[in-house]
């Protein structure tokens, strides 16, 4: 048995099993208790983790926008989310007339649950994971489907036109971007030869970011769209339409959609780190499982940083641009790169290094061809309705070189 500091979770589990058996519990009962405890711990920690995520993201977005971010409550404002939480817990629930009560209350719960469910199959270290399901990838996609269901329930049951329209927008976006996402997930499955998440991590001697860069890119973009935040936040574009599917929600019921969004953003970073950056793999991670957890956290935060950077720096898409990007660029690109990867990887199976190199080169060629070839066609040719008319022509003598006007 490994010493406790190398694998504390296994150590505690073994200890607890011994204690419970010592009390004379039947072995099946002990397993059930351990299952419930393990699942409860992962789900609870994931929920509580959101408190930190909210602080981190607000701080970072503040820095990107040249502000301080939260800095009043506690050192560096670290207790700000706790204050927010206390506030939102005491907010009144306003339930509008004519809502369909059961779906209305179920929707925020489903939204959070669909994200939490993903955490059940993620391997945190070599030994610690919720469950090593052999169909983990399908399971992850399926839990995304539950999230779509939550949104459509929220939009429909609120008895509000804006909620309904926002729900349609959100669902159309989510299901559309699910198509290239599932196709791009097939490529790691092909390379690893398994649908299990831990098997995919184990197979990554060389991170799949190198063997499947196009798939990684597509997965990153589509999972940004699945989280429904900027630049894909058309579903609740707060400056254009009122809010979207969650318009009739208040208090913590609205807060749950908020929690789901933040947790989803972190969870897709975790998934990206697991599927394309090698998860817990790193030097000595097999000997000292705790070290694997450190690697995973570092990789996840790198990806999460990029996710927040995207959110902070890109403007929102228009809906037709968003749909064109999905159906006319990402979906064909995902299919073509799947075909190319399947054909290129097969003859080179015996030589992993050459395989990776060939995949890298072929992926690069596919990407360049796509961007050069279809990229220009995809851009919609718009008819010019009218010429912009200059409102005021500066006098030739007063004309000055253009200056930036500043914020």
């Amino acid at each position, binding site marked *: 048995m490994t010493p406790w500091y190398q694998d504390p979770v296994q150590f505690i589990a073994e200890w607890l099993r011994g204690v419970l058996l010592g009390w004379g519990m039947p072995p*099946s009962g002990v397993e059930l208790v351990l299952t419930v405890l393990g699942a409860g711990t992962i789900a609870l920690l994931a929920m509580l983790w959101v408190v930190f995520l909210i602080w981190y993201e607000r701080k970072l977005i503040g820095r990107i926008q040249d502000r301080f971010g939260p800095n009043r409550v506690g050192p560096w404002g670290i207790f700000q989310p706790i204050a927010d939480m206390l506030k939102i817990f005491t907010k009144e629930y306003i339930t509008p007339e004519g809502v369909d009560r059961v779906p209305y209350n179920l929707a925020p719960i489903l939204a959070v649950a669909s994200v939490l469910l993903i955490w059940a199959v993620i391997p945190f270290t070599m030994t610690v994971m919720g469950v090593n399901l052999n169909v983990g990838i399908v*399971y992850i996609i*399926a*839990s995304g*489907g539950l999230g779509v*269901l939550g949104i459509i*329930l929220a939009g429909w049951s609120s008895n509000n036109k804006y909620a309904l329209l926002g729900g349609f927008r959100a669902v159309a976006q989510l*299901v559309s971007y699910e198509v290239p996402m599932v196709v791009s997930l097939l490529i790691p499955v092909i390379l690893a030869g398994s649908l299990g998440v831990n098997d995919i991590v184990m197979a990554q001697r060389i991170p799949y970011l190198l063997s499947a860069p196009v798939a990684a890119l597509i997965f990153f973009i589509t999972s940004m769209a699945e989280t429904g935040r900027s630049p894909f936040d058309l579903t609740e574009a707060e400056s254009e339409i009122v809010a979207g599917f969650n318009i009739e929600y208040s208090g913590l019921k609205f807060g749950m959609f908020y929690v789901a969004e933040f947790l989803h953003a972190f969870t897709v970073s975790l998934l990206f780190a697991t599927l394309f950056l090698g998860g817990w793999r790193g030097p000595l991670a097999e000997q000292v499982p705790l070290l694997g957890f450190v690697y995973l956290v570092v990789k996840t935060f790198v990806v999460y940083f990029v996710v927040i950077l995207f959110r902070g720096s890109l403007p929102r898409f228009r809906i037709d641009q968003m749909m064109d990007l999905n159906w006319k660029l990402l979906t064909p690109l995902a299919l073509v790169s799947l075909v190319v990867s399947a054909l290129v990887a097969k003859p080179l199976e015996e030589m992993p290094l050459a395989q990776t190199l060939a995949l890298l080169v072929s992926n690069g060629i596919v990407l360049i061809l796509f961007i050069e070839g279809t990229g220009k066609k995809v851009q919609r040719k718009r008819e010019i309705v009218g010429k912009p008319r200059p409102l005021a022509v500066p006098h030739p003598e007063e004309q000055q070189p253009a200056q930036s006007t500043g914020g």
Partner: protein
Amino acid sequence: MTGLQIAFLAIAAVTLASAVLVVSSRKIMHAALWLVLALGGIAALFATLEASFFAAVQVMVYIGAIAILIIFSVMLTRRVMEDTGPQNTRYWPAALVVSLGVFGGILFLFLQWPGFSVESRPGLEQGDLLVRFGQALVSPDEFVVPFEVASILLVAAMIGAMIIARDPSRK
């Protein structure tokens, strides 16, 4: 009565109850939501059959796609059937008799069959199973023709439905 049997009975009861609500609910939208619960229950039954791939696929395809599409259609056609008026035809007692008759017939056939009370399951290696499944799908001796035909069928259905369902006012 083992834990597995209790779980089976609970899941089956929930699934059948929601299936009955699917066919009897007055609000068509509620029927669609009960359908989601029924499909989820069937996914759980697949899990008890150790068909883990199909348990996950059931949720992914039926709940994540087919149920969503049905709910969309319900919303799209909402205006005409404002949940007023009967949702069932006048002949529903006849339908009930026919359904019960079919059930009686199936039950009669089952009870004459000796394999009805089989309890033991052959051993199963899960990882190996998916690999075998994949090989069977593309092996020329087995199911490669249905596999390719399925692709053609789905693409044909997709194109047909898109052309049918297009907005006729669009050019």
